[in-house]
C-alpha cells in the first residue's frame, strides 16, 4: 500500500483559489509530472481576492460576472496547462486512510497525494432579526451581490460590523461610493489587534476626519426590520438605522470535509509541521490560510496566517515535501521561515506590513507623526521571547515603495541558532 504512485491517481488539490493554484504550479516545478487535479467549490477559475474589497467593489462599470472575473483572474502558467480544474465541485468528506474523497454529487475520487487548500469562509453573526440585507465579502459572487444591491440604492446607510482589515477597507471603499458608513467594533480601535492601540487610534482619527464613523467598544446584539434589515441594535441598547449591513467579523476554517479522520488536529485550521506535512496523515500537505504551521521567525508555536503572501510561500514548501513523500524520500529539513507580508488600502492610506506585528507586546514609533499619517509613518513591533526582545513586525503607512526591500530584509535569514527549536 505504501509504494509510491500506488493507484496512479496522481495528486488532488482540494480548494481552487490562490493556494490551490500555487500548489499546482509548484508541484509541477518540483517534478510531479503525473495526473494533477484541482477540485474547487467556486465555479470560477482561481482569482485574486484582495481587490474584492478595493477595486472590484469600487469599480464604476457594470456588474457583469465575466468582466469582473477578468479583472482579478490569475494568469495561468504554461506548466499548469494540463492541470484538470474541476470547478463547482465541493468535497464533502474524506477517508485519508483509504485515500478517497467524497464529492457533493456522491462520486468518489482517489488520490496518491493530497493538498489541503480549502481556506476560510466568513463567520456569520448568529443574532435575532431579519437575514435579508446582510452581506459578507469573501468571494467574487459576494461582491457582485453587494454591488447589485448598492446599484439600486441612493446614498445607502451601511453598518459594517467588525473593524478588522477587511471591515475597515470595505468601509473606506463604500464611503468613496457615496454610502453613509458606520463601523461597529466591540474590541477597540480599528485593526487594533494588529496595529496596537496608538497607531490604530491614529488611523481611526484619520478615517473619521474623512467621513467614516466608528463606534468602538460596543457590540451588535441584533437586527431590526421585518423581512429586510432596517437597523442594527447595539449591545448598549442604542439603535442604528441601516439599509444594509456588511459583516466582517472574522473567518471559519473550511475543515469539515476532513472531520472523522483520526489523528488530525483541526482545532484551528489544519495542524502541520514546518514542511507543511499534515500531522496525522500520510502523503498530505496543507497550504494557504488553512495551514497552521510553526515559523521560527517568532517562536515555535504553530499559527495560521491569513495573508496573501502565505499561499505562495507555503506552496513552495509543501510541493517539494509532497513530491518527496510520494517518492518515499525524506522531505527537505531546512527551516521554513517565510516572512509574512500584507498590504491594505484605506482612502489615502496604504499600509504595508512585514513579519507579525500582531504578536508584539511593545510598539515603537520609529518615524513620522501619528497626527500626520498620510505623510508617512513607520512602526516597529517587538516581543520579548525567553527574556530576549525581538523585532517581530513592521508596519509602514504611506512610506515610499522604494523602502520595502530594506523593511522586509530585516526579517530575512534570522539567526536560527537563537531560535526556540
Amino acid at each position, binding site marked *: 500500500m505504501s509504494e509510491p504512485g500506488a493507484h496512479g491517481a496522481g495528486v488532488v488539490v482540494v480548494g481552487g483559489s490562490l493556494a490551490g493554484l*500555487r500548489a499546482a504550479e509548484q508541484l509541477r516545478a518540483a517534478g510531479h509530472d503525473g495526473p494533477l487535479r484541482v477540485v474547487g467549490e467556486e465555479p470560477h477559475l482561481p482569482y*485574486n481576492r484582495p481587490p474584492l474589497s478595493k477595486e472590484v467593489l469600487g469599480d464604476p462599470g457594470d456588474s457583469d460576472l465575466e468582466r469582473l472575473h477578468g479583472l482579478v483572474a490569475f*494568469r495561468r502558467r504554461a506548466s499548469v496547462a494540463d492541470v484538470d480544474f474541476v470547478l463547482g465541485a465541493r468535497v464533502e468528506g474524506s477517508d485519508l486512510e483509504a485515500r478517497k474523497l467524497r464529492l457533493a454529487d456522491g462520486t468518489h475520487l482517489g488520490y496518491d497525494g493530497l493538498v489541503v487548500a480549502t481556506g476560510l469562509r466568513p463567520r456569520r453573526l448568529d443574532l435575532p432579526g431579519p437575514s435579508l440585507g446582510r452581506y459578507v465579502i469573501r468571494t467574487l459572487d459576494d461582491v457582485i451581490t453587494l454591488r447589485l444591491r448598492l446599484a439600486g440604492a441612493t446614498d445607502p446607510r451601511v453598518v459594517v460590523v467588525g473593524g478588522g482589515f477587511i471591515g475597515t477597507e470595505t468601509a473606506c471603499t463604500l464611503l468613496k461610493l457615496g454610502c453613509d458608513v458606520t463601523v461597529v467594533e466591540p474590541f477597540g480601535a480599528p485593526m487594533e489587534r494588529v496595529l496596537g492601540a496608538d497607531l490604530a487610534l491614529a488611523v481611526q482619527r484619520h478615517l473619521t476626519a474623512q467621513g467614516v464613523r466608528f463606534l468602538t467598544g460596543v457590540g451588535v446584539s441584533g437586527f431590526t426590520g421585518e423581512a429586510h434589515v432596517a437597523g442594527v441594535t447595539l449591545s448598549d441598547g442604542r439603535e442604528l438605522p441601516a439599509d444594509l449591513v456588511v459583516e466582517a467579523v472574522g473567518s471559519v476554517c473550511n475543515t469539515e470535509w476532513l472531520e472523522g479522520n483520526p489523528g488530525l488536529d483541526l482545532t484551528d485550521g489544519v495542524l502541520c509541521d514546518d514542511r507543511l506535512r499534515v500531522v496525522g496523515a500520510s502523503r498530505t500537505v496543507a497550504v494557504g490560510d488553512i495551514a497552521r504551521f510553526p515559523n521560527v521567525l517568532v517562536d515555535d508555536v504553530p499559527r495560521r496566517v491569513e495573508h496573501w503572501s502565505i499561499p*505562495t510561500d507555503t506552496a513552495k514548501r509543501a510541493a517539494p515535501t509532497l513530491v518527496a513523500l510520494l517518492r518515499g524520500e525524506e522531505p527537505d529539513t531546512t527551516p521554513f521561515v517565510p516572512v509574512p507580508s500584507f498590504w491594505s*488600502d484605506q482612502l489615502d492610506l496604504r499600509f504595508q506590513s512585514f513579519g507579525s506585528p500582531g504578536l508584539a507586546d511593545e510598539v515603537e514609533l520609529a518615524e513620522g507623526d501619528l497626527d500626520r499619517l498620510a505623510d508617512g509613518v513607520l512602526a516597529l513591533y517587538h516581543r520579548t521571547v525567553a527574556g530576549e526582545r525581538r523585532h517581530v513586525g513592521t508596519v509602514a503607512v504611506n512610506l515610499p*515603495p522604494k523602502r*520595502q*526591500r530594506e523593511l*522586509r530584509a530585516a526579517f530575512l535569514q534570522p539567526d536560527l541558532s537563537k531560535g526556540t527549536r
Partner: protein
Amino acid sequence: MQITVDMKRCQDHGQCAIAAPDVFRINDEGRLEYEPTADESLRDEVEEAADVCPVQAIALLDG
C-alpha cells in the same frame, strides 16, 4: 523573454522590485520602471515577480 506591465493596473506596490531587482525597480518618484526584455536566465526571478504582484499586473511572453 518579454515582459509587460499593465501600467493602468500597477499601483507601484514594488513587490516585483523585491523579487526581481534586475528587471524591476521603483524610481525616485516612487513609480515602477522595468526592462521590457530579460535574459532567459532571469526567468525564475521574473516568474516570482509576476506571482507576488498584488494586482497581477505583470505578464510574461516567451521568445
